[in-house]
């Protein structure tokens, strides 16, 4: 490897690295505004000036200068300091000094770097330039006077999000960042531009003026809005989660976060269940825990074991599902299911319901077949990965299902099962020739009656084209629910002779139906006595006879298994609302009342038990390497019929109880349905 000297210290670097990267590697910190590791290089802020020998006797922008063998780089000479002070002075000519009322204050790159390179006074007496605010949609609040034209936002939406809506118009002193005719940014990753903005020009609209960053208590936890399990830092002031920011996890979300995961926070405050309720004469009335648990226990013990059942919801932690599963098995019930969508997964080897290539690993695939899945709505960050793979030029993408705008080009094969049963020849050849082919199947293809046969056909196709090979497993299931893989891993499916979720909600199927945070299944036809344990007054609670208030995902510690099969530990950020309790503790209390006390008194004991019963849960943050399995054995051979595959998530902003309680999500959803007219106004 070539070697350069940074401030006199010899540093090895890889060919192609820039001077800035080499300096960073040597531990020299370089201030910057426009440069960002994951975006293309713009070189327009000039803050990263360094002195380089050999070279012209003037400071050079290190972010755009390729490093060379034998180069001498100086980052802390008097010349460098003076040059950076000059740049800073120019930046501050037009930047307003409104830090006390700026949302970015306290975590602002310009503020921080002005501490290092700012002069103590201004030599500029003229008026500062003023720029009109721009409308960029419900997630982005603009104060364009503060903009320093780094163009990070432009590059992000163009390169990563694949929605080239933002641009820089005019030039020189009049340059402005805007969208075309101030249309909202049509991206599900738009919130990231607020993170990227080094100043307070783009800030988070849903949280504007809600907090100062230094007031917040930060907790590192896991997102549950999709099945990727993005790593987040949930930040709370008092008893309220104020904001959610991404944490870096190269394997999952890199450093991005989808708008849904980010701006869900107001949903955590609204329509909350904060005390138990019992239905009396058709009306729900507030009750004590003692009374509510007593009613449920009486019903459970009075009913026949085969007349009680439980459905687990999409946002449940593994512990509460384990406790509930243990309780119902102890009661002798076989009616347990975590698949509200009625999917065919859950039998056979574990690899049959995992995203086996891994979220990062999918970039290695050379041909990807999407079946009944719209990754842009179901898992926006996976879609960003697919776009990245497509941009590299080494990956071809084929689609069976809906013809949606996925932000990259793909070959459209057909609408549904008919195409799958007889793949067009060019596509089949492409898959067969591929070195690392991958199939991504979504809930839209494998739920419903034809689910098992579609799954079987996919398995056969996977086997035929060699989706599973030495060191490569490209059979990928993209779940839409954060709880699903954990549920399937622990066997939260009907036992022998048990009813599935879809069967349980039929009229007359059960006497007692326990909904563990299950809001996405329509249980209105069921005439059973319904118990709802959950955090929000949503679909599940509306029809319930007893409501047991539980904790939302930011209010309990829990394990979640993402679609790759990676177990991650979420932490409690704030306490549950009012009288609400941790979900597992409610189930544990209930078990005592029905006389089947569960053998754990603390979360630790419950986890120990879970890990003992299902060892995969014991490997936190671990992604298993590609493992071969008999993919052709999945599902059941049968007639595929002729159905079109529709994405399992028609509207990502309204597909769980927290999202439905959020005003921001409602706004985003409205924008999806009726995009603002583009005509000149």
């Amino acid at each position, binding site marked *: 490897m070539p070697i350069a000297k940074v401030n006199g210290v010899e540093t090895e670097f890889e060919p192609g690295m820039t001077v800035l990267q080499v300096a960073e590697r040597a531990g020299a910190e370089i201030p910057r505004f426009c440069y960002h590791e994951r975006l293309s290089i713009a070189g327009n802020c000039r803050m990263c000036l360094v002195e380089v020998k050999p070279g012209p006797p003037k400071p050079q922008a290190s972010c755009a200068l390729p490093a060379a063998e034998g180069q001498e780089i100086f980052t802390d000479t008097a010349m460098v300091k003076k040059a950076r002070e000059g740049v800073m002075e120019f930046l501050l000519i037009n930047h307003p000094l409104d830090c006390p009322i700026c949302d970015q204050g306290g975590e602002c790159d310009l503020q921080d770097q002005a501490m290092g390179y700012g002069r103590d006074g201004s030599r500029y007496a003229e008026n500062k330039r003023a720029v009109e605010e721009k409308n960029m949609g419900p997630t982005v609040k603009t104060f364009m006077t503060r903009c320093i034209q780094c163009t990070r936002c432009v590059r992000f939406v163009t390169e990563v999000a694949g929605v*080239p*809506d*933002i*641009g*820089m*118009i*005019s*030039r*020189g002193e*009049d340059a*402005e960042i*805007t*969208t*075309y*005719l101030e249309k909202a940014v049509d991206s599900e990753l738009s919130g990231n531009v607020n993170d990227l903005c080094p100043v307070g020009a783009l800030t988070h609209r849903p949280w504007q003026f809600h907090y100062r960053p230094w007031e917040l208590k930060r907790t590192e936890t896991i997102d549950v809005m999709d099945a990727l399990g993005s790593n987040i830092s949930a930040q709370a002031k008092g008893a309220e989660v104020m904001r959610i920011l991404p944490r870096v996890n190269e394997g999952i979300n890199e450093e991005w976060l989808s708008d849904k995961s980010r701006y869900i926070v107001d949903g955590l405050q609204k329509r909350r269940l904060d005390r138990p309720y019992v239905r009396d004469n058709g009306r729900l009335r507030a009750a004590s825990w003692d009374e509510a648990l007593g009613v449920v226990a009486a019903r459970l013990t009075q009913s026949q074991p085969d007349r009680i059942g439980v459905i687990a919801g999409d946002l449940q932690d593994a512990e509460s599902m384990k406790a509930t599963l243990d309780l119902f098995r102890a009661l002798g019930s076989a009616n347990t299911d975590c698949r509200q969508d009625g999917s065919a997964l859950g039998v056979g080897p574990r690899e049959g319901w995992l995203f086996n290539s891994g979220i990062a690993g999918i970039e290695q695939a050379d041909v990807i077949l999407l079946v009944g899945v719209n990754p842009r709505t179901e898992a926006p960050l996976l879609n960003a990965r697919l776009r990245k793979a497509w941009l590299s030029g080494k990956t071809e993408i084929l689609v069976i299902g809906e013809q949606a705008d996925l932000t990259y080009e793909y070959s459209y094969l057909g609408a549904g099962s008919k195409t799958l049963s007889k793949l067009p020849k060019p596509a089949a050849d492409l898959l067969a020739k591929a070195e690392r082919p991958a199939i991504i199947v979504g809930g839209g293809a494998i739920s419903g009656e034809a689910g098992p046969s579609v799954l079987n056909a996919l398995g056969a196709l996977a086997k035929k084209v060699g989706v599973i090979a030495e060191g490569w497993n490209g059979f990928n299931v993209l779940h839409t629910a954060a709880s699903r893989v954990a549920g399937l891993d622990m066997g939260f499916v009907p036992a022998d002779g048990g009813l599935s979720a879809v069967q349980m909600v039929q009229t007359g199927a059960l006497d007692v139906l326990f909904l563990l945070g299950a809001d996405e299944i329509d249980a209105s036809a069921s005439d059973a006595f319904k118990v709802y344990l959950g955090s929000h007054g949503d679909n599940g609670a509306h029809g319930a006879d007893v409501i047991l208030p539980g904790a939302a995902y930011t209010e309990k510690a829990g394990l979640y298994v993402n679609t790759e099969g990676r177990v991650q530990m979420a932490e409690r950020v704030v306490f549950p609302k009012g009288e609400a309790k941790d979900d597992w503790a409610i189930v544990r209390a209930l078990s005592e009342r029905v006389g089947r006390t569960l053998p754990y008194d603390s979360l630790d004991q419950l986890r120990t038990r879970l890990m003992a019963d299902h060892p995969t849960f014991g490997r936190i943050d671990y992604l298993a390497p590609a493992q071969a399995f008999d993919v052709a054995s999945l599902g059941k051979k049968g007639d595929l019929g002729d159905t079109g595959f529709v994405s399992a998530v028609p509207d990502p902003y309204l597909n769980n109880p927290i999202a439905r309680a959020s005003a921001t999500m409602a706004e985003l959803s409205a924008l999806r349905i009726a995009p603002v007219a*583009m*005509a*000149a106004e």
Partner: protein
Amino acid sequence: MSVRRLAKIQPDSFAFSKETRAKCDWWIAKYPADRRQSAVIPILWLVQKQEGWCPEPALRAIAELLGMPYIRVLEVVTFYTMFMLEPVGSAALIQVCGTTPCMLRGSGDLMKVCKSKIGPKDTLSADGRFTWQEVECLGACVNAPMAQINDYYFEDLTAETMGQIIDDFAAGKRPEPGSYAGRHTSEPMGGALTLTDAALYDGSAAKPIKTLPNSEPAKVPA
């Protein structure tokens, strides 16, 4: 220069005329198919030629023609000041050069005439037939002061000739472009002083070329 914005009042639609479209295709054909957005500036010129200015629906039409995002066309059209974002005079768009040489030679007087005959700068006249602007150097300093009117340079102007030209345009005439001081292009006043020998131009001074300059390898000194 001030902030450039799209006009408030915009037409409902835009369509390429047959000729414009044919010329667009000629430009597009110059670039590889996946790089056809390179033709954006020539096509903006063509649209401006067709409409007199660049209306917003045209920007979208161009973006769709070239397979590029709308915002990218907006970036280009707002960057270059030669693209008119508002309707301009149907008879004449007068661009008076205001840069130093022209200013020293009296461009201020030209602007005064424009102001009195047409109205305020950068504004369409009341009858919709004239617009005048002050622009930066147009590169004809030797003929200062000058103005570009529509596609042509009018040079060596005075307040009187400027007024006459505006009146001519108003009357529907097409005044001659070029110098108004009675000289040919930028020759000295009163005619050329050098290169006047007629033999330079009848071929008699020409000699056959024996070798092309620099066609031999350089001789390396021993």
